């Protein structure tokens, strides 16, 4: 599976899934394990809060509606204790306002139900990396180089001229090099919209970008991950 092949690139993550629905939780634990990660499960808010306070996790996946203590309160309590483990909120409430509420409560990302697992793992991996990662001035993938200060992009010795939006698209992809980024993640982070654009708008932007950075080179760097999204990586690795 695509998610599996991607997991080989990413390091193993330790996750806590706080979800009261037994089936959904089992499915997530199993799917994350198959992807090479370690996942614990808490069935209610209090248990989740206790586990998240005492154990070290890379990312928390928190359902919003939980017995005993709701998801936003769990995150709020953790933040108040100084626990800054990144948290992704899963919620059946998908409207714009709910999302804002979730992020304000201290969540780092928000994914409305129903979601695809590919979307979830891509976001979780980005969160895990963001937590430990650093902001570099120059991103490099293979012989592709992006300078965030001078806004110059080089492939080998050739300078590639990009439109501002194309630059931001490539910047986001390279920032998460080796990680799958989904179409909605691109729309959120590059365009700052959270709606489903219905048509293949992102694909067309990607194919334009691809024609600029990969066309004429033996090793393509920008890859499509079927059923999930895109990843930029040095194919040789």
């Amino acid at each position, binding site marked *: 599976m695509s998610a599996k092949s991607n997991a080989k690139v990413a390091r193993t993550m330790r996750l806590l899934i706080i979800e009261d629905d037994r089936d959904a939780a089992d499915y997530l634990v199993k799917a994350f394990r198959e992807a090479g990660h370690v996942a614990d499960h808490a069935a209610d808010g209090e248990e989740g809060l206790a586990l998240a306070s005492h154990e070290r996790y890379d990312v928390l996946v928190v359902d919003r509606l939980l017995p005993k203590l709701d998801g936003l309160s769990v995150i709020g309590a953790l933040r108040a204790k100084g626990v800054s483990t990144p948290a992704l909120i899963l919620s059946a409430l998908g409207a714009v306002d709910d999302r804002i509420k979730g992020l304000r409560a201290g969540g780092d990302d928000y994914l409305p139900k129903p979601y*695809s697992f590919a979307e979830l793992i891509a976001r979780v991996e980005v969160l895990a990396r963001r937590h430990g990662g650093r902001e570099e001035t120059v991103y490099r993938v293979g012989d592709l180089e992006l300078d965030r200060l001078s806004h110059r992009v080089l492939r080998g010795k050739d300078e590639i001229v990009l439109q501002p939006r194309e630059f931001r698209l490539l910047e986001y992809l390279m920032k998460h090099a080796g990680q799958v980024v989904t179409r909605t993640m691109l729309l959120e982070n590059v365009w700052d919209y959270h709606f489903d654009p219905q048509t293949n708008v992102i694909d*067309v932007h990607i194919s334009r970008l691809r024609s600029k950075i990969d066309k004429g080179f033996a090793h393509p760097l920008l890859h499509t991950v079927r059923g999930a999204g895109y990843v930029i990586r040095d194919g040789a690795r």
Partner: protein
Amino acid sequence: MTALGKLLRTTAFRLTLVYLLVFALFAAFLLGFLALNTRRMINDQIMRTVDSEIIDLTNMFERAGLRGLIVAVDTRSGNPGSSLYLVTTASGDGLAGNVGSLEPRVIENTGWSETAYRRLEQPDSEEHTALVRVVRLPAGFRLLVGRDLAERERLFSIVAVAGRWSVAIVVVLGLVGGFFVSRRVLQRIEAMSDKAQTIMAGDLTGRLPIAGTGDELDRLAANLNAMLERIEALMRGLKEVSDNVAHDLRTPLTRLRNRCEAALRAAKSDSDYRDAIEATIEESDQLIRVFDALLMIARAESGEPRAGMTAFDAAEIARDVSELYEPVADEKGLALHVEAASPAPVRGNRELIGQALANLLDNAIKYAGAATDRAAGAAPEIVVTAETRGDQIMLGVGDRGPGIPPADRTRAVERFVRLEQSRTEPGSGLGLSLASAVARLHGGELRLEDNAPGLRALLILPRADVARGTS
């Protein structure tokens, strides 16, 4: 509760009672004041008359002596009227006058007093009251002049009777008036609450009666009616939502189920199953999309996302969304132009307005793109505009596609209406409905116009500074 009991408990009746009490007290006070003043006035007048007579008679005594006085007093006593005269010796024996009897010791004290008396010529009549003044004349003689007080008492009693009657009349009229006013108010309230009962029982089309007098009850009824109007519209919307949800979700759910059944029945290899499962996931994604769109329309209709409104530039949205869709349009052989140079301040939900515009653009690309093969004559271009016109912001998307026939245009923007031809196209097919719901949420509208040829969709929103005034 009895009808009378109900009536007595009305606010109108209680107010009547309070007013009645206040008016009765006021009337009693006024009449009492009047009576006392009248009495004092009559007393003053009597005293003035008595004083001048005493001066006359004293002068007479000084000029003509006791004899002259007696003659004058006898003459005056003979005149008809209410005057009293009495001349006595120092020991109190009567010398002249018309007084038969007095209260004891009256004659001995000089000055003013009130006394019961009898006239000399009517010794057997009942006693009357008089106001008298006694003066001492030289040589110990005493002179008494007075006036009967019957007139004063009569006047006083007339006023007292009038007072009692007027208070009684005020009370009776007030009670009757209060009764009728309360009954009238009660009848109207009763009519309103009866109507409210039938409305609560489920007849949402019912409205409260309005008397047409424009009073506070009418205003209350009109406001309640407006509220009912809104509730009815929401209920109608809810019913439409459920009907449309049923239709829009049942159909793809049936397809989904059929596909799974077909796979179970006919699939022979793993790859057959894989294909079927992938198709199922695709179908369920489509289902989620429809569901999300319906939910978002319903939430926009309910006015819920009003909280997340901020002020922003709609021209920027037009440029952003156009930039997002430009490659897609380009791929379909359509040129996408943006005319949004000047800022267009809007107050609203950026996310929703962006999505509405994206839907319009998506539609334009879908239909105009499909049509360019056929209508080669028309220039294959899409124009996105953002302009300020008066206190309105207009976000427009014009295409050169087949357009929508005028007859269908108003129907196309109604909530949850999908034109038949759109059902076969990919996407939720709810783009126009959603855009229209977003416009209504912001107090604007979605207008569809002939782009000659093609369709021009206009998202009309109130300007930011104007919108702020209303929010």
